[in-house]
């Protein structure tokens, strides 16, 4: 078992900093001896999300791909009143009428976890609508940048408003 070096079939396997099942073996050994046992799982090396114990940063993570390719998810279409059936607590923001807004807000979860969940959902819907599309354009990123400029302006408004009356700049 010592010193067996398999041929270099694929240069991409030479990545010493990827986690491997047999940490004590050097790379060449696991390439030579472990291939037959893990031949079925060889392609998973480069997709850490598919490993069972992968901990990803999930503050602003997008939702992982949960559908099957080729199956179009059916969004509820129909006329105006169809999206407004169902109890108020379960409807999305866009399906709530203006008069029902305070009641709907009262049903929302305002705990830190609930707020974080709301932020994540909003971010995911934004990404899925403008960025994760087949032919995304500059609009998705431009809206983010414009929002950033406006937010920065609002943040420094108290400071900038002194410039209005300044005689010499």
């Amino acid at each position: 078992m010592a010193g067996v070096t398999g041929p270099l079939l694929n240069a991409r396997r030479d990545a010493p900093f990827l986690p491997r099942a047999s940490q004590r073996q050097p790379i060449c050994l696991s390439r030579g001896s472990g291939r037959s046992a893990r031949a079925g799982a060889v392609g998973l090396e480069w997709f850490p999300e598919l490993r069972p114990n992968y901990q990803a940063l999930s503050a602003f993570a997008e939702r992982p791909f949960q559908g099957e390719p080729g199956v179009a998810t059916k969004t509820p279409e129909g006329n105006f009143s169809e999206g407004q059936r169902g109890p108020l607590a379960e409807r999305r923001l866009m399906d709530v009428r203006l008069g029902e807004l305070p009641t709907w807000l009262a049903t929302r979860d305002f705990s830190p976890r609930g707020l974080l969940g709301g932020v994540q959902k909003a971010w995911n819907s934004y990404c899925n609508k403008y960025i994760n599309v087949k032919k995304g354009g500059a609009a998705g990123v431009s809206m983010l940048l414009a929002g950033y400029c406006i937010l920065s302006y609002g943040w420094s408004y108290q400071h900038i408003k002194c410039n209005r009356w300044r005689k010499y700049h």
Partner: protein
Amino acid sequence: MNLSFFDQFSSPNLLGIPLILLSLLFPTLLFPSPNNRWINNRLSTIQTWLLHLITKQLMVPLNKNGHKWAMMFTSLMVMLLTINLLGLLPYTFTPTTQLSMNMALAFPLWLATLLTGLRNQPSASLAHLLPEGTPTPLIPALILIETTSLLIRPLALGVRLTANLTAGHLLIQLISTASIALMPTLPAVSILTMIILLLLTILEVAVAMIQAYVFVLLLSLYLQENI
């Protein structure tokens, strides 16, 4: 309340939170984490292409031990690039105009390269203090000079980035102020000044990208000497 041209480099607070915090966190939104699809969206594809280009460019001169620094250099490069470019948008704050932040980036990284060299190959690292082929009488002086240049590297790294970006932002503000002030009285000169402003903005975009690249390139060169 008289200083106005340098006011753009002080980060204003809202409810006690400084704007620099927002400027440091916003770039994370612009880089979506790659999902496990075979073909990603266009934004991720472009970013992955750029990332591969940068990583290849930086890692080719390094040996295998140096490749452990790939994540560090690549993430530093992406962060500096994004922060510098975002600072050119109106009303935004550029964290890299602050010397404190640039020194905080430059000093630990330079020290890490130096300590790596001194720990793993001390004689080879110290040998860099004397270039080959030096005439013998010059040796003491040259060692002093080389030591000084070694110790001044983090300062140079930090100040280079700060000075370039600060000067650029100041120039843009000055020329745009001149252009607006001239508009009621000498509109032709004002239009000329606006053309100069346009060219300067293009230059600033280039400087933003080049300075980020130079910072990381120099660090990789210092690593190359020591690893």
